[in-house]
């Protein structure tokens, strides 16, 4: 199981770097998607190595929640862009509607 753990950790670290250093919110959401996928990979590997199918049911739910997460994030980006502000996380300082 160790190769899968190491691969999942590498992918999670890559996603974390992207989330921390990029400034385009769309690319930040994509980095979060990479981190979701790293966690999913670890759960699927654990389900295979423990021989239970419950982990795969959990990953199905996680994929659903990741899609909802992405939809909300993209809606926030659209809302900010429609207000005429720059889509730049360093320039956004307030959350007032």
């Amino acid at each position, binding site marked *: 199981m160790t190769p899968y753990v190491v691969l999942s*950790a590498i992918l999670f*670290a*890559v996603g974390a770097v992207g989330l921390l250093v990029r*400034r385009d919110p*769309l690319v930040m959401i994509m980095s979060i998607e*990479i981190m979701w996928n790293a966690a999913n990979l670890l759960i699927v590997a654990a389900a295979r190595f423990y021989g239970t199918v*419950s982990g795969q049911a959990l990953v199905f739910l996680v994929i*659903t929640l990741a*899609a909802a997460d992405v939809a909300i994030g993209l809606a926030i980006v659209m809302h900010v862009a429609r207000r005429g502000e720059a889509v730049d*996380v360093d320039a956004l300082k307030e959350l007032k509607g």
Partner: protein
Amino acid sequence: MTLALLGAAAVAAALGVILARNPVHCVLWLIAHLVATAAIFLTLNAEFLALVEILVNAGAVMVLFLFVLSLLGSSKEPEGLFGRRGESVGALVAALAFVGAVAALSGSSMAAAAVPAAFGSVQSVGVALFGPHLLPFELTALALAVAVVSVVTLAGRSRQP
């Protein structure tokens, strides 16, 4: 050997996501990453999840990204690829997370359990999902409904004066 190739492809595509300048290229790299992840799922006897990964994530969610990109227009990174927060801090945090995750998890050098032939099929996942895990499934449906309402509220707001 198969895992090494697929894992290298997945990591390379993930690096492409965080290093590409054009957001459209980021989306395309992410699609490649998701396809590689689906192939890794296939090596773990998760056929249903591999299909869901391609249909839902690489299909629907990535099309959503491309729709938003085409609505926003091409947004070039104004002053450099990276923010003012400093990439050294990000790299340090990620390295610490990587070392911590490997140290915490890699001690389990367990062998794969013997699984039946139908492990990971639609039927077995469905039986698990609608049997012992019905309540989380229903709660996920509730979360999706909340997400739909919030997205409609946020995206339809600009019609008002």
